[in-house]
């Protein structure tokens, strides 16, 4: 299976890239190609033009500061996963990225591309949503910030306009006294999850003040459920808000089962993580 013909442009400046996207209604951005090229080969997409952003300068950064981690559009998954600093500022990044595909795919696929691609079976869109991060996009009209809560519109659909280029994703730092955990079940490590679950638990040192859980491969958009008031039965609270999907990989009932097993586990693990971090900060 081969892609249909398209015009190809490899701009070397941001201005050139944005002008091309603005000038061609059917243009699409080509980043790592790890999701787009299969779609083209299977002819599930047939853009009139590809704007290959791999030649743009200064977009491959992973910047860390106390507020969080800023990831540029050309930073590969492998680069983000390899950043010790990023893992310290926001440990959920590395926890989740180690489940994103196989190392060979991570050498090419970009974290920003994965987010914009908005696959509910992908880890990073859910992580961005759970951490309440955001994506900065640029077009000929200027720059704007889209909060994660407004980013995911439907299956493989984000709220970017056709001429907008995502330049950076922002993942907030893990606050003091907070903890995270991630687990997923896949048929083979590195494959898309049948169900993946992440938790972000905040404490005041002892008591849990806020607990949220995010789900991968359960619905057709990344979903996050607040379980702060259901800490003794977080899975029941989650399932009340979820409507697990059925596909060739798993029945809805099996997905619901995985949710009920994984949710209490990650909430407990994130709570332990939060308490151990709280102890590190203020030794009793």
């Amino acid at each position, binding site marked *: *299976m081969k892609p249909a013909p398209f015009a190809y442009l490899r701009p070397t400046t941001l201005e050139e890239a944005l002008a091309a996207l603005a000038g061609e209604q059917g243009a699409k951005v080509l980043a790592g190609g790890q999701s787009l*090229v299969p779609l083209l*080969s299977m002819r599930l997409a047939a853009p009139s033009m590809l704007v*290959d952003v791999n030649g743009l300068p200064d977009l491959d950064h992973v910047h860390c500061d106390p507020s969080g981690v800023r990831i540029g559009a050309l930073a590969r998954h492998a680069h983000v996963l390899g950043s010790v600093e990023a893992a310290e500022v926001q440990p959920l990044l590395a926890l989740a990225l180690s489940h994103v595909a196989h190392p*060979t795919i991570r*050498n090419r696929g970009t974290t920003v591309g994965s987010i914009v691609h908005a696959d509910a079976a992908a880890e990073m869109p859910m992580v961005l949503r759970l951490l309440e991060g955001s994506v900065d996009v640029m077009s000929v009209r200027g720059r704007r910030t889209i909060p994660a809560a407004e980013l995911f519109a439907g299956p493989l659909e984000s709220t970017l306009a056709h001429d907008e280029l995502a330049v950076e994703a922002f993942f907030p730092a893990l606050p003091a006294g907070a903890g995270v955990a991630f687990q997923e079940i896949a048929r083979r490590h590195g494959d898309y999850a049948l169900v993946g679950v992440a938790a972000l638990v905040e404490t005041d040192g002892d008591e849990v003040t806020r607990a949220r859980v995010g789900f991968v491969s359960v619905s057709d958009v990344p979903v996050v459920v607040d379980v702060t008031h259901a800490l003794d039965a977080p899975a029941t609270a989650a399932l009340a808000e979820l409507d697990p999907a059925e596909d060739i990989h798993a029945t809805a009932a099996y997905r619901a089962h995985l949710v009920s097993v994984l949710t209490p586990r990650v909430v407990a693990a994130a709570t332990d993580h939060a308490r151990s971090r709280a102890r590190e900060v203020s030794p009793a």
Partner: protein
Amino acid sequence: MTSEKLHDVRLHVNGSVHEVRVPARRLLSDALRHDCGLTGTHVGCEHGVCGACTILVDGAPVRSCLMFAVSAVDAEITTVEGLTEADGSLSPVQQAFSDCHGLQCGFCTPGFLTTITAGLRDNPDPSEDEAREMIAGNLCRCTGYQNIVKSVLRASQIQGGTKGEMQGEIQEERG
């Protein structure tokens, strides 16, 4: 039908330069096989799943079926043909596959060889679990993976790693 625009692309493969004229949609895997005549790179699924087409781009393993030839202009590419030593002898990973029966039909082999070559550079002395993790993104329909895992450990041993030494079976095969 109007003819499709062609791009002149200079590919750097295994230390040589290949000037090719291709449409933008030419997959790098096809450019290597058809335009450069380097048929060692195999094509299985063409959507990134099987790993048969894995090559090294600037030293890192990537799927050549998920890149376009036009995107590879600035890259240093190594295919399975480029793994042999300068004197024509087998590389440690190739030798290990031969020693340990790491291949049967050989279809998946080029992808394993490139993946493992890069994997052992990053982790020269893998444990058996790490060896399994190293090859987890490549599919083989013949071998059941046991001998491929052995080959990883054997290659590490040939290159001077130590953990392979602890594998009795491999020791025996070395004779």
